[in-house]
């Protein structure tokens, strides 16, 4: 009896042999880093409202600041280290979205600004945009019909 007798048998064997990702450690890191990023956003929000900006404008300023900061950290080769440490913690907030657009733009600069930066910029973020916008359209239609 050997573990390479059938693909099914082999895959069962591989699952046992391959190390798993440290899920508890990853979750803990994602939790506190993600929380920290949101707390920074909240602080910016409080600062804006204290200066007299309305709620909507304050939210926009928060997004602009976090996207700008994330893009800057991506450019200076820091964000990938944060992402490696925090995983979903830095990926899920808007910081991850900015990183996913800036990183391919940097990577494909060698192929020129049109076919490189321009064409490849949305290779990672593209699906998020497509399905994010599509689902909001569908939800909007549902809201129109039933509200």
């Amino acid at each position, binding site marked *: *009896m*050997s*573990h*390479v007798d059938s*693909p*099914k048998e*082999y*895959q069962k*064997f*591989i699952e046992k*042999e*391959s*190390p*798993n*990702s*440290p899920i508890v450690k*990853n979750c803990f890191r994602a939790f506190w880093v993600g929380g920290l990023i949101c707390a920074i956003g909240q602080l910016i929000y409080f600062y804006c409202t204290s200066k007299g900006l309305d709620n909507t404008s304050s939210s926009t300023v928060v997004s602009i600041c976090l996207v700008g900061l994330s893009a800057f950290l*991506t*450019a200076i*080769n820091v*964000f*990938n*280290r*944060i*992402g*490696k440490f*925090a*995983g979903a913690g*830095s*990926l899920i907030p808007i910081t*991850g979205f900015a*990183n*996913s657009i*800036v*990183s*391919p733009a*940097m*990577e*494909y600069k*060698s192929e020129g600004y049109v076919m490189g930066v321009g064409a490849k910029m949305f290779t*990672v973020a593209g699906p998020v945009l497509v399905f994010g916008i599509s689902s909001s359209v569908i939800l909007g239609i549902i809201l129109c019909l039933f509200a």
Partner: protein
Amino acid sequence: MKKIGTNTFKLDDLISIVSTASIVGPKESDGPLKEYFDKCVEDEFWGEKSWEKAESKFIKEASISALNKSSLAATDIDCIFSGDLLNQCISSTFGMRDSNIPFYGIFGACSTFCEALSLGSVFIDAGANNVLCATSSHFCSAEKQFRFPLELGNQRTPNSQWTVTGAGSVVLSRNGKGPFITHFTPGVITDMGIKDANNMGAAMAPAALKTLITHLSDTGRSPDYYDMILTGDLGYVGKDILIKLAAEQGYDISNVYNDCGVLMFDQAKQDTHAGGSGCACSATVFSGYIYKLLVEKNISKVLLIATGALMNATSSQQGESIPGIAHAVAIEL
């Protein structure tokens, strides 16, 4: 040359490896084998504008270095066999475009180095005098082609491997004092249904097992005949799997077996997870480390089994499993 057993070829002519050269990138230069490489480059771009251009420079400079060490002129080389991981083998073709030497670009994914040694040996057996074999890979260009942008903040899985940046080049000749290529066993494509592109070691281990067992039974040798049996880039995960699979088939390889991907990096310090991979992994470890052990007579018999995962980014996205391959070359003093 004659065929023995089911898939092994025994070379009657003495095909000598007269020189080797290895050039590696910054991470490899910090690894345990750093002192064995001919040149350690501190900049991943090596002064070029793109990683692809840098990779071509690695293979070009490694080949020039191997040629210089062999004391042969470029005109003495009858043919080049060269390959890499980038689409349409551009590292090799762009690296060799000024060489003015007949050129065969070959692809066997990370098994290309042994594929080149096998084909080069056949060429010499058929009448050529000198052949140059070279392969390269580059961490950054491979990540760009197969995975995600480098600056993307994602996490690597514990099974994932680190593509070696570098190039290895060897000159084979019918006139030389050894080490000699005595046998080679071309591998068969083996697919056990693994789909996880982050677990190449597991995908390729069955191919390595098949080639290893075929080689041993064709030649009538036991694993202990060799001072060293080396796979190309199974990494830590694949290495353990192969030891267990071989034991199931009645072959205890644990005393003589290691993997180039395991030797290349310090797993604890260098954060390379399951070890090194890529066309340059077996090429640089052999050209740098193993060849010196052979020449200094620290070891006299090596079985090098370069392993390859024959997939691309499209096949993975289409849900295909990963076919593995492994080519073995026996090198003896």
